[in-house]
């Protein structure tokens, strides 16, 4: 279980998070929605120590994330970054097997490569892709490789940051389906950041909307359409008019 307790974060005068309280249950797939620049990515980065909150605390299975042993703690997580964040200096299989080539999870080279190829196959990529470099792949293939890397070490918790950004609608659908399958199959706890409502439909068990640095609404996916919250309704229906201020 991941519990965010009163999380605050500001970058200079920009107060991004203003007291976020949210709980993600074990094995649950939580999707965070909200406008651009509302701090969705910052929120998941606070869990991994990539961004340090100014105030509040984050508990993972009851343990404060600032009090844990970093290596062991991080080995429980997988993350798919918005742009893929693949290491362009190494071939695809080494990207996927990165964690399996060093540290506590280190495996013999041949075994690490075998696992990488198996994970690539799991995300729908042929073994021939393993020896190519990220720059030689399309955006959709890069997302799949990034997904394969996120699941390579069998994590308990996976974060997906804008998994469909920059992809065409068909490829977005494919990636959403793949994420859903993997989340169910591995039984992981998942947090997905998105503004893509098709991702919400496919991936979410629960949905939370972040607005002005706080959780505006949180509920099940089924309740989203009838939330009764004007902010959520405006966002879901993509209306320019409503309580959410827009720049025109």
């Amino acid at each position, binding site marked *: 279980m991941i519990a965010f307790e009163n999380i605050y974060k500001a970058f200079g005068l920009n107060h991004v998070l203003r007291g976020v309280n949210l709980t993600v249950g074990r094995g649950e797939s939580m999707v965070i929605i909200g406008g651009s620049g509302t701090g969705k990515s910052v929120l998941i980065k606070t869990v991994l120590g990539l961004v340090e909150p100014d105030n509040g605390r984050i508990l993972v299975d009851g343990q404060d994330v600032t009090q844990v042993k970093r290596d062991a703690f*991080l080995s429980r997580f*997988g*993350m798919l970054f918005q*742009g893929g964040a693949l*290491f362009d200096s190494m071939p695809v299989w080494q990207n996927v097997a990165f*964690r399996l080539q060093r*540290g506590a999870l280190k495996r013999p080279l041949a075994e690490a490569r075998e696992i990488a190829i198996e994970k690539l196959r799991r995300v729908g990529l042929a073994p021939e892709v393993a020896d190519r470099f990220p720059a030689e792949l399309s955006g959709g293939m890069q997302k799949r490789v990034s997904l394969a890397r996120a699941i390579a070490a069998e994590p308990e918790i996976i974060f997906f940051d804008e998994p469909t950004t920059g992809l065409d609608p068909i490829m977005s659908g494919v990636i959403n389906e793949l994420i859903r399958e993997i989340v169910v199959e591995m039984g992981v706890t998942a947090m997905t950041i998105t503004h893509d409502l098709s991702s919400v439909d496919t991936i979410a068990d629960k949905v939370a909307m972040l607005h002005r640095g706080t959780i505006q609404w949180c509920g099940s996916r089924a309740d989203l359409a009838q939330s009764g919250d004007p902010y959520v309704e405006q966002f879901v229906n993509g209306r320019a008019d409503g309580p959410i201020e827009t720049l025109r």
Partner: protein
Amino acid sequence: MSAQMILIVRALGRLCIDSVSALGRLVLFAMAALSHVFRPPFYRREFFIALLNVGYLSLPVVGLTALFTGAALALQIYSGGSRFNAPEVVPQIVAIGMVRELGPVLVGLMIAARVTSSIAAEMATMKVTEQIDALVTLSTAPMKYLVMPRVLAGLMAGPGLVAVADSIGIFGGFIVATQTLHFNPATYLLNTINFLTSADILSSMAKGMAFGFIATLMGCYYGLNSGRGAQGVGAATKASVQAAAVLILAANFALTAVFFTA
């Protein structure tokens, strides 16, 4: 005190605080990088790639620069020495000039241009594309995986490159002196060897080590602290080369004072 005076004092104070805190951040970064040299895990593959990039691949530019500098130095010393009837000092001055000053400084500036810029651009791009964040989430410390191998490679490749630059620079002077200034080759070499002391060579190697360290450290520091987007990458690259060049020249003065002021 007038309001204008207060503003000036305030601006000066701000400048001092900013400068000292920037220096403090840099020193802490350098200490953190060096501390990882002695703590496992060690990424040998990354170290050898960095050594290849900093050392071996810098050889052509360092060699060519040193060759032409040594040759030009021989011509200048011959011309200048002739003014007070001492053109025969060419081998000694070329040797001392290359080994004590020009060899190390040329190497420092060449690797600042070639290596510092490439390290800064690579790391800044990695930061902008979230590859640094990805490293952290994959339980790998960027300081250990990216910074330490490059800084160690700079420390080790610097003296080697300086030795090459010194030798090729002296050779450039030798070619010009024997082919166009009609010096006797054997006498030229003998004068060169007899004139150089172990302190000259030691100072040259120490400078090489220091400049290799500065060049790689600046690339890593500015790369990992870059701003966002393409503009951030460009600014980090520019700032890293400027800082490395200035620090190398300042360190050269400090090391020259340490070795030769007694």
